């Protein structure tokens, strides 16, 4: 019995060591979203093109990406071509023009192509608040049941898309 007890410190050391080792790789900037596993919060937003009021019921019935962007956001310029490429592959993207102006947004999409199935105006950022957005670009993956499965802060690009893609079918 005493001999077994002697190994307890070593076991604790190995246990702590492996926990710390695993945590080393973790991205310390990653903040979990409070919305994972929930449905998209209630909203009423204006469509950039049709000026109609859009509500939850008008969202796609398949899986899709909600992408927050703005013409004021430098990283969104970098992200945009990749979103265009995704849209061409058949990925449904709903754009939320976050704290931006409609005229500037239309110009931007005219110039750079429009990857969005729909663009909704969130001029005051209220919908962004309801989703717990911290800035732009920021994207939420919604599965075919309308449940948010993933949140990505920052630019979606070829290297992180493989990881993000999985959540579309979750």
């Amino acid at each position: 019995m005493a001999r077994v007890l002697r190994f307890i410190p070593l076991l604790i050391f190995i246990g702590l060591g492996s926990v710390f080792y695993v945590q080393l790789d973790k991205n310390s900037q990653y903040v979990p979203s409070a919305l994972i596993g929930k449905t998209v919060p209630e909203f009423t937003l204006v469509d950039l093109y049709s000026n109609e009021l859009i509500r939850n019921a008008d969202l796609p019935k398949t899986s899709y990406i909600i992408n927050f962007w703005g013409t004021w956001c430098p990283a969104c310029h970098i992200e945009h071509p990749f979103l265009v490429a995704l849209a061409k592959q058949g990925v449904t993207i709903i754009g939320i023009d976050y704290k931006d102006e409609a005229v500037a947004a239309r110009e931007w999409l005219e110039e750079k192509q429009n990857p969005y199935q729909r663009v909704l105006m969130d001029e005051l950022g209220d919908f962004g608040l309801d989703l717990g957005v911290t800035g732009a670009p920021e994207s939420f993956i919604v599965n075919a049941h309308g449940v948010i499965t993933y949140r990505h802060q920052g630019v979606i690009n070829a290297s992180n898309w493989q990881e993000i893609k999985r959540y579309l079918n979750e």
Partner: protein
Amino acid sequence: MNRGLCFILVCCAFFAFQLKAEAGDWQSFSSSLHETRYQHLIEELRCPKCLNQNLADSTSGIAVDLRHQVYQMIEGDKTDQEIIDYMVARYGEFVLYRPVNNLTTYALWYGPFILLLIGGVAFFLVIKRSRSRQGRRDS
């Protein structure tokens, strides 16, 4: 007064002024109680973008928005708890600088005391055993 101390005091005065200016961005409070509650809340809530700053200290866009939201909710006669619940529902418990007491944080709060207790018990057992051993040897 030595020069270093002087410098620190000047710095303090500067930062104090900055904080005050930030708090006075847009709002005029309907009562001084509201202002006190506002100051307290923005110091207790963490900025979701900048990780190690509270809402009061951060200049990021989202912190400005959230300060405004806190202001509006206070003026809209919401209780502190309602405001905190609102933030947690959107940004998770991450936004609380004062973590809640629940099952997941239980180990963090009380783990060290439990470990200390175990250590103490082990310490006394070892002492007791070596004493009784010594006693046997002496007799």
